[in-house]
């Protein structure tokens, strides 16, 4: 039985919430609206609010500079920013109303099939797919609802000087080799070989981006939806095992429970920390930290996951948060103008040394070593992305959440009882139970 929440539930408590019900009952008439690009930039008028997770850029004025630049082309649009510290949590609550800005990053909580109810379409898959990357991540029934302004490539950010001092000059090609290298760093340098960023949680979720790199398979996401992610040799098992072995081998920081992300950046820049699993987006932040700490920005290196198929490394590309237009926005043209400008012209991707969302743009400098080493870049097929999310929530495993990896680290440190095999086996069991009950 399907109910419409807004009418039925508020109706059932009408006695108590007369006032509230009168106002929350909203018509869903805007569903399916398009956000068309304006024909004449100088004609667009209105004030728009952009919700963003980049609180750092809001706070240091960078976003205001983008807005000023944007106003040179679109003088009639006033852009305001809401930087949300707990982006997912706050946006989820706000999306229960129509009041969730004009432009926002699509939060993970929204199911793909509901995109048309919340966001205005940016165009068809056919027209956008020719020009932009990552369109299938937000395509519903042939229409595209979001666009990521950058693409990211996962990898280890490392301090080249420390690795050289330890006598390692070539990228490791297997997890075992990687562990050996970390051991060399531990014995030959003063640096902490690997830093988990356990306390800040989200850096641990980055490990899920390994998926696809080990098997060198564009269908890796589909595999998650159809198989056991922790089966012997599966990508996530390889990743989680490596993380476990790093911590178990005493190759990570002493006290993971009080780590500090902001402090880890100068730590890596100055060579106190040798390695962190993050993504290409982190390189620019590490280089900034190096400059501030008086270290050499050129020491910051970037390497792929230690696994090769037929002698080549593979690295997946994935979108960051995708910008979308609120379907209830009163200024859809202006909002669309902002997304187009931010994607195509802002220079945001270049400033972040990230992959451009434009298909014909050149690779960023950061990935130059990847090109030289012949690392294969894969665009994953996200056709089953929605299923994976459903299974993930249903099973309460949370592959995009930090909790289970915190457990892996605790397991490796001995702060939690049990063996890794049993733990991953249990995850696999919960995963397949959820898949079966969703499939039935």
């Amino acid at each position, binding site marked *: 039985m399907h*109910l419409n*929440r807004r009418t039925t539930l508020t109706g059932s*408590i009408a006695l*108590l*919430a007369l006032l509230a019900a009168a106002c929350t009952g909203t018509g869903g008439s805007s569903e399916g609206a398009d956000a068309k690009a304006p024909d004449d930039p100088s004609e667009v008028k209105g004030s728009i609010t952009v919700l963003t997770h980049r609180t750092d850029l809001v706070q240091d004025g960078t976003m205001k500079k983008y807005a000023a630049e944007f106003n040179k082309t679109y003088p009639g649009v006033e852009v305001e920013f809401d930087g949300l510290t707990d982006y997912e949590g706050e946006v*989820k609550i706000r999306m229960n109303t129509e009041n969730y800005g004009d432009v926002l990053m699509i939060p993970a909580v929204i*199911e793909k099939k509901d995109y048309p109810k919340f966001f205005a379409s940016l165009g068809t898959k056919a027209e956008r797919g020719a020009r932009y990357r990552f369109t299938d991540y937000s395509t519903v029934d042939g229409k595209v609802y979001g666009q990521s302004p950058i693409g990211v490539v996962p990898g280890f950010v490392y301090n080249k000087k420390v690795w050289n001092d330890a006598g390692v000059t070539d990228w490791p090609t297997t997890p075992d080799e990687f562990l050996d290298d970390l051991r060399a760093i531990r014995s030959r340098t003063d640096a902490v070989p690997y830093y988990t960023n356990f306390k800040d949680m989200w850096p641990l979720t980055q490990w899920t981006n390994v998926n696809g790199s080990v098997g060198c398979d564009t269908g890796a996401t589909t595999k998650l939806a159809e198989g056991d992610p922790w089966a012997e040799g599966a990508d996530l098992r390889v990743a989680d095992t490596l993380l476990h072995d790093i911590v178990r081998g005493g190759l990570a920081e002493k006290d*993971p429970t009080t780590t500090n992300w902001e402090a880890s950046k100068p730590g890596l820049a100055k060579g106190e920390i040798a390695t962190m699993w993050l993504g290409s987006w982190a390189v620019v932040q590490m280089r900034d930290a190096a400059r501030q700490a008086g270290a050499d920005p050129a020491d910051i290196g970037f390497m792929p996951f230690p696994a090769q198929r037929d002698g080549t490394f593979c690295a997946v590309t994935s979108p960051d948060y995708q910008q979308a237009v609120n379907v209830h926005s009163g200024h859809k043209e202006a909002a669309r103008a902002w997304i187009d400008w931010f994607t195509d012209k802002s220079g945001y991707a270049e400033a972040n040394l990230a992959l451009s969302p434009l298909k014909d743009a050149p690779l960023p400098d950061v990935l130059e070593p990847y090109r030289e080493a012949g690392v294969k870049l894969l665009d994953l097929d996200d056709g089953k992305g929605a299923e994976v999310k459903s299974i993930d929530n249903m099973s309460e495993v949370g592959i995009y959440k930090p909790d289970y990896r915190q457990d892996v680290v605790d397991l490796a440190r001995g702060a939690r009882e049990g063996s890794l095999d049993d733990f991953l086996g249990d995850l696999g069991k919960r995963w397949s139970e959820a898949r079966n009950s969703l499939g039935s």
Partner: protein
Amino acid sequence: MADTAREAARPGRRLTPWLFLAAPLTLLLTFTYAPIANMIAYSFTDWDGVSPELNWTGAGNYSELLTRSELFEVFFVSGYYLAASVVQIVLALYFATVLSFDVRFRNFFKGVLFFPYLVNGVAIGFVFLYFFQDGGTLDSVLSLFGAGTDHAWLGTPFSANTSLAGVSVWRHMGLNFVLFLGAIQSIPGELYEAAEIDGATRWQQFRHIIAPGIRPVLSLSVILSVSGSLSVFEIPYIMTGGATGTETFVIQTVKLAFQFNKTGLASAAAVVLLLIVLAVTWVQRRIVPDEKVDLV
């Protein structure tokens, strides 16, 4: 509640109290009861917290809760906070008794013990993150006494929960202390004088004069501690986010709702928690039917 049938029921008067209550009741119903009603309604659905559609699942969430015993395992963590509140009450009682007698710098000690209760929670979070850090305040103090340690204070479930419960004692002891002190000071001074003349020791004075005098406040503190221990949220959420076995029932509920989008199940868990808290309160009122104390 004292009976207050003081107002003659003159005609036309019936409406008057409602005029005074109109604004308070409207606010109460709008901002407290409407959300509760919504929460109860959601607990019978599979709503994910944001989708415009939801399905009626009857008592499904409640039976899922009851059959998944692991969801209640987090109440073990409440045990740490319960133990901590025993320590907290004993300490508060001790200091209140000591400071109710003539002591030098009495006001200074009184102020120091109470002050943490007034400190901003976010500030407390930062203060204690620094406190437990590797090489932070605690490690420095210990090495001052030659007990140099490498212990990761938030590193194991036992150590982390004990540390967090310790922060909770640090923060909340002051309130218990001031409540006890107030109760002790409201005991007439002649009682002590008489006791002194009879040659009673301090302990005897405590047992026979002070203890009976503070019973109502004590029972209030106990009930607040029990329900407080069941719904601990802020301190562990800010400091560890529930990692390393520090997850409490409320953190788990928030995670169910916000990480896994099981708002329906989370609402049911919240309702269950509310019922447990109500039950504890009810039991306490049966055991100590004390007219003098109202729940705050």
